[in-house]
């Protein structure tokens, strides 16, 4: 084969790869817009259903804001039911602090706690904290065909972590072909999918479409956790820098 032929094939392959990467990037960039709200205050409910039995609905307030250096920050404060009222989680980057309602004590937790169940739900602390920004931050993406999710044509995108401290070894995301919004995200650990998150009831919030219902279903237990957003306010004046510190967490009641 002539060198010129090889060169042309090389350019073609590179061109196709480049186009694919660009397409994936564009798709994810569009889908991530839902999470590009800044200084977000929200009030939502968390309902866990285990073995077909629905547990008491938990009510929480959340404050989310990126620091000036881009560090993801979130604070979640539970106000109901009475047994958990006053429990709060603070995440700043990879750091996690928990305020225990029973004692009022604030405790810093190790990074092993980040992937564990938050409030006994199927969401991990990392899911709740990192979800404020994007599911794909820290992952490289690859298009893996098309599938129908809830009757909607969707791109299937495989995401692999680019950093060693990622909470999951692999994510598979489905993004609707037409609206370019996340429909489903599957989480993998130890070579197998462990849970699936469905994002539904997209509504206009500011300049983006935001999922008001996020449902996480465990693939290892008979368990489903559903977060329903009751109120969401982007660019909220209630979201201040001082909220994102262990000092503020200690002051909570």
């Amino acid at each position, binding site marked *: 084969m002539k060198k010129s032929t090889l060169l042309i094939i090389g350019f073609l392959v590179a061109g196709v790869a480049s186009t694919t990467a660009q397409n994936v990037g564009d798709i994810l960039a569009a889908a991530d817009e839902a999470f590009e709200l800044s200084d977000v205050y929200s009030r939502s409910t968390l309902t866990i259903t285990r073995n077909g039995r629905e547990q008491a609905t938990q009510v929480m307030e959340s404050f989310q804001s990126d620091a000036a250096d881009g560090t993801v920050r979130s604070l979640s404060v539970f106000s109901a039911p*009475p047994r958990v*009222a006053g429990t709060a989680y603070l995440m700043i980057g990879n750091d996690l602090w928990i305020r225990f309602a029973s004692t*009022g004590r604030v405790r*810093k937790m190790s*990074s092993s706690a980040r992937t564990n*169940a938050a409030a006994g739900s199927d969401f991990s602390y990392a899911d709740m904290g990192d979800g404020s920004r994007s599911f794909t931050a820290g992952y490289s993406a690859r298009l893996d065909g098309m599938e129908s999710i809830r009757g909607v044509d969707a791109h299937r995108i495989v995401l692999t972590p680019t950093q060693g401290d990622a909470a999951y070894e692999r994510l598979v995301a489905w993004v609707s072909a037409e609206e370019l919004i996340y429909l489903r995200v599957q989480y993998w650990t130890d070579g197998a999918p462990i849970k699936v998150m469905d994002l539904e009831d997209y509504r206009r919030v500011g300049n983006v479409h935001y999922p008001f219902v996020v449902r996480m279903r465990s693939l290892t237990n008979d368990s489903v956790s559903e977060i329903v957003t009751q109120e969401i306010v982007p660019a909220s004046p209630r979201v201040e820098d001082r909220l994102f510190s*262990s000092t503020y967490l200690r002051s909570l009641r």
Partner: protein
Amino acid sequence: MKLSRPSREAPWALRAAATAIAVIALAWFPQALFAEDAGALFRGEVGSSIGTLIASDGEFDSVINPSNALGLTDLSVTTSANLRVERRSDIGSLDFRIDFSAYPIGDALSVPYALAGAPDPALAYAAGDSIWSAEITRAAVLWYASHSAQITLGRQTLVRGYGLAWSPYDLASPLRDPADPSGFVRGVDAISLTVSPSWRFALTAYTLLPEGTTSFEGIVAGTDVNLLAGPAEVRIAGLFGGEEEGIADPYPHSAAIAAYIDLLGAGLYGEAAMRSRSRLGILESDGTQAELNGPIWSALGGLEYVFPSGATLLVEYFFNGEGWNKDQRESFVAGVVSAPTLANLSLYRPGAYSRHYTMFNLLIPLFGSGSEVTASSLFAVDTGTMILNPSLNVTLDQSGNLTGEVMYAGVFDLYGEEASEARLSPAEHQVTVGLRFAF
């Protein structure tokens, strides 16, 4: 029994500042806070439990309960309740909690470590074989004075250390009960100012009024600095305890350092404290109390790890510089035998009695049933006392507010030492079944 405190002299500037802050807070703050759009939260918990004690001699007789002077019985009922009123807004918060309890008089000594965590109620009286108590454990107003400063006035918690069962770093908080590490710790009466210009740095300065002190002379002061650097968090604290007089002093001059670092997913933490003297004295064999002067060092090392299943493991080692060596323990036993007064018995601090301790705590959540199992043990290395404390906590209703608990506490004597906590305990085993309702 309350130990008397020496009087102390506070600088006049401190008195003036404390008075000014109190006047401002009391006059202005409640109106401003309640004008905000904030929801008041009234909540609390009521619980009752039935416990059964088992003693090998069948008579609950020990050095600290001679001839069962406290009247321990095979079965006993304990009832407790707490009520909290909380309110939070963008400008500050209110925090009030009152604890009520009714328990058999002998309970203070019936379980291995109860004495260390026994309340010091503001209102308590004995009726029949029971003690009834009511205690305000929190009564504080917090004001966010600016974006980076907050002032808290009233009965508040100053717990800052990392240790679960022990925390030598906590210079200003009451001793906690190592057998109930997640138990509620009573607040201290203080004014505190926290300045935090960045989430990586916070400085707290406080003055506190020790219990029983009614004048400015009794005020002591302390600081706590918190610094985050990379994966590590470092804390440094100091306490000025005023003039040292008397045998017992809960607030000797102290300095402490603590650190937490995340390593391969595990949380490693350590604390070290130096006190000018022990907070409690020692008991001579003739029944007289004496000071235990310093400097006295204490240290703690711990590890925390959360497994993928959600199980949380905590392991701690505690070097208790205020604990007693073998001679001092034997002297205490002889002293209590010769003079078994409440004042002398109050020197006994189970779980902080000897020098070296280890703690193992494994919490296993059973998500499917809304329950959790806790396996906990304490081991006094130098006296050979092993405490095993497994428990099962079950959620009984759909709301999650009604819970049931079954708990076992057992004391085992591994070395056969006469002056060990195992030998001092009037009962070897206790099984408790209880119900709690949160509202």
